[in-house]
C-alpha cells in the first residue's frame, strides 16, 4: 500500500514539476528523471513485478490515492489559471474519450463524428441558455440527450453499413454538421454563440474565485472539480457497462458478428445501445465545454477535433478504460507544455498515431481481460 501511494506521489510531483517548470533547465531535469524512471522500470523486472503486484493487491487504495492527488492538483497549479484550464480540458477529454472508446473500442463502431456529437451537446446548451433563457444547470443534461437523439436517427442508415463505410458516414456527418452550423441563422452562423451564462448551483456561480482551506484558487478550479466529478462518474459507469453482459456482447460482435448472432445477441439492439451510451458522454463533454468557455463556434467542433479524440483512444489503448484516462492526460497537456509544438499540433497527433499503430497498436495501457468486478 505504501509502495502504491509512494509511486503515485512521485508521479504527481513529477507531473506538477513538469507543468510548472518555466525555464529549460528544470524542465530538462524533470524530463530526465521521468526517462530514468521509465528505463529503470523497463529493465528491472523485479521492480516492475513488485509495482504490478502492489497495484493489483490494493486496487481500491490505488484509486483512492489517485483521486486524492487529482483533487490536490489545482492547489499545486493555483498560480496558473491557464494550466488549471488545460487540466480541466484534459478531464473533459476523459469524459468524451470514454464515450467514444465505448463505441470504437468496445463495439467496433468506427465513429469519426465525435466532434459533431460534442457539438450537438454544446450548441444545445448554447441555444437553450442564450436564446431560450434557460438556466445553465437545466440545459446541461439536455445537451447529451440531443446528441443521443440525433445519433439514434443517424443510426438507421449506419446500421446498413459496416467497417470503413460506417467511418465514411460519420465523417460525412461531421462536415454536414459544420456546414449547417455555419449557415443556420439561429446558431449564429460563423460567429457562433456568445455569452453563454456560466453554471450556477444553489446560487453559487462558477466564475467566483474559490478559496479552499485558506488557499485562493483560480476561478477555473470550480470547473476543474466539476469536470473531475463528471469524468470520474463517466469512467465508473463505462467501466461497469464494459464489465457486464453488454460489454461482453459488444466485444463479441466486434470480433465476429456471425458468432454473436448465432449465440443469440441482437446485433441491432446491442449496436444502438453502444452508440447511444457513447454519444451521451460525448455530448455531455461538449455541453460542459460550452458552459466552461462561454463561447462556441463551428471551428470548435470540426473534423480535427474528431481526430484528437481518436488519438486519445489510440494512445491510451483501444477498448481500455484506464487507457483513455492516460491518453487524455498525456495528449492534451503535452502540446501546451511545448509551445513551439503548438503550431504543429495536428501534425504531432498524426505522427503519434502512426508511431503507436506501427510499434504499439495495443496502446500504452492495453485492455485487460474482463473480470466482472
Amino acid at each position, binding site marked *: 500500500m505504501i509502495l502504491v501511494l509512494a509511486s503515485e506521489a512521485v508521479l504527481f510531483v513529477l507531473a506538477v514539476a513538469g507543468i510548472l517548470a518555466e525555464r529549460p533547465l528544470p524542465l530538462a531535469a524533470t524530463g530526465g528523471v521521468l526517462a530514468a524512471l521509465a528505463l529503470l522500470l523497463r529493465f528491472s523486472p523485479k521492480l516492475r513485478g513488485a509495482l504490478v503486484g502492489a497495484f493489483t493487491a490494493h486496487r481500491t487504495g490505488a484509486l483512492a490515492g489517485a483521486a486524492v492527488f487529482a483533487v490536490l492538483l489545482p492547489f499545486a497549479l493555483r498560480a496558473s489559471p491557464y494550466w488549471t484550464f488545460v487540466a480541466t480540458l484534459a478531464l473533459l477529454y476523459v469524459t468524451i474519450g470514454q464515450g467514444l472508446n465505448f463505441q470504437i473500442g468496445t463495439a467496433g463502431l468506427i465513429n469519426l463524428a465525435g466532434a459533431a456529437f460534442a457539438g450537438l451537446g454544446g450548441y444545445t446548451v448554447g441555444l437553450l441558455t442564450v436564446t431560450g433563457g434557460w438556466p445553465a444547470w437545466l440545459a446541461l443534461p439536455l445537451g447529451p440527450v440531443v446528441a443521443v437523439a440525433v445519433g439514434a436517427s443517424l443510426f438507421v442508415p449506419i446500421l446498413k453499413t459496416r467497417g470503413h463505410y460506417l467511418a465514411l458516414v460519420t465523417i460525412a456527418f461531421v462536415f454536414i454538421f459544420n456546414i449547417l452550423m455555419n449557415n443556420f441563422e439561429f446558431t449564429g452562423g460563423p460567429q457562433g454563440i456568445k455569452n453563454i451564462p456560466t453554471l450556477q448551483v444553489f446560487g453559487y456561480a462558477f466564475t467566483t474565485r474559490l478559496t479552499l482551506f485558506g488557499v485562493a484558487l483560480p476561478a477555473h478550479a470550480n470547473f476543474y472539480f466539476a469536470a473531475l466529478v463528471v469524468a470520474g462518474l463517466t469512467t465508473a*459507469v463505462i467501466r*461497469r*457497462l464494459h*464489465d*457486464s*453482459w*453488454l460489454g*461482453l*456482447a459488444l*466485444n*463479441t460482435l466486434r*470480433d*465476429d458478428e*456471425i*458468432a*454473436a*448472432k*448465432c*449465440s*443469440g*445477441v*441482437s*446485433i441491432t439492439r446491442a449496436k444502438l*445501445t453502444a452508440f447511444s451510451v457513447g454519444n451521451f458522454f460525448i455530448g455531455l463533454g461538449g455541453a460542459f465545454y460550452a458552459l466552461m468557455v462561454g463561447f462556441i463556434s463551428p471551428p470548435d467542433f470540426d473534423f480535427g477535433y474528431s481526430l484528437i479524440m481518436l488519438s486519445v483512444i489510440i494512445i491510451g489503448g483501444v477498448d481500455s478504460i484506464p487507457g483513455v484516462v492516460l491518453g487524455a492526460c498525456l495528449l492534451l497537456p503535452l502540446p501546451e507544455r511545448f509551445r513551439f509544438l503548438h503550431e504543429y499540433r495536428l501534425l504531432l497527433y498524426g505522427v503519434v498515431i502512426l508511431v503507436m499503430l506501427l510499434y504499439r497498436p495495443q496502446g500504452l495501457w492495453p485492455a485487460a*481481460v*474482463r*473480470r*466482472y*468486478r
Partner: protein
Amino acid sequence: MTLLETRGLTVRFGGLVALDGVDLEVAEGETVGVIGPNGSGKTTLFNTLTGLYAPAAGAIAFRGRDLVGIEPHLIARLGIARTFQASRLCLGLSVFDNVLIGMHARRRTGLLDAVVRRPRLRAEIHEAIARASHFLGLFNADLVARGWERVGQLPQIDRRRVEICRALASVPQLLLLDEPSAGMNPEETAELMKDLQIVREEMPGLSIVIIEHDMFVIEGVSRRVAAFNYGRKIAEGPFAAVAAHEEVREAYLGKEGVRA
C-alpha cells in the same frame, strides 16, 4: 418425437441451387450424421437452419414452429446452437468470456443492474462462471484453470472444446456441429470423439446434427446418416447402408472409381 423437420428446403444463389428440396427429420435425443463431398450443401443447410441464409422455398419446423424468416439471434434463443467449420471464437477474449456469450440470451440482469445494482450482476456472473467451468471441466480440467486466459493462447483441440462449450452454454435442444475434426490430426480426432461421447452422456435429451468428412467419427457417433450431393439428399439410413449406397460411392469416388 420429431424436434426438427425440413420439407422441400431449397436455397439458391443466383443460378446455383445450393440446396434442392431437402427433407430431413431429427428426433429428440438423436445424433444424425451429414456427409457429402465439398460443395454438396452441408454447411448451407446449417446456415439456413440458423437463419443466416433465407430459403427460396420449403419449410423448417422446429418444435412445431416455422423458422423461415426468423432472425438468427431469435433462432438461437429458440434452442438451436452451432459450431463453425473455421473456428469463430474471439481469440482476444478470455476462455470464460467466450463461453459466457452463450448464456447472454438467458441473462436476468440488465443495464441498471450493471451500473447501479452491481451485486446482482456479480452474483449472476458468478453463477455463469460456475456453469462455464462445469462444461469446460467435462472435457479438460486444465481449461478451467486457464479460464481467464485469452483463447488465442490455447491449442487447437482446446479451442474446439471452448466452441462446443459456448454452444452448450445456451442450453440448446439442437446442436449443429460443422466438421468439428477439421484441421485435426488422428490423435486429436480420437480425443474429439471422446468429447462427443461426453456430450452425449451429459445431455441425453440433446439432438445433434454433425457434418463430418472423417468417416470414423461419423460411424462412431451417429446412428443415422444423411448423404448430400449437389444440394440434394441422395441417401439416408444407418451408416453401413449409406456407405454402401451406389450414388454415395459415385459422389465420393466418381463413376470410374465405383466400377473399378
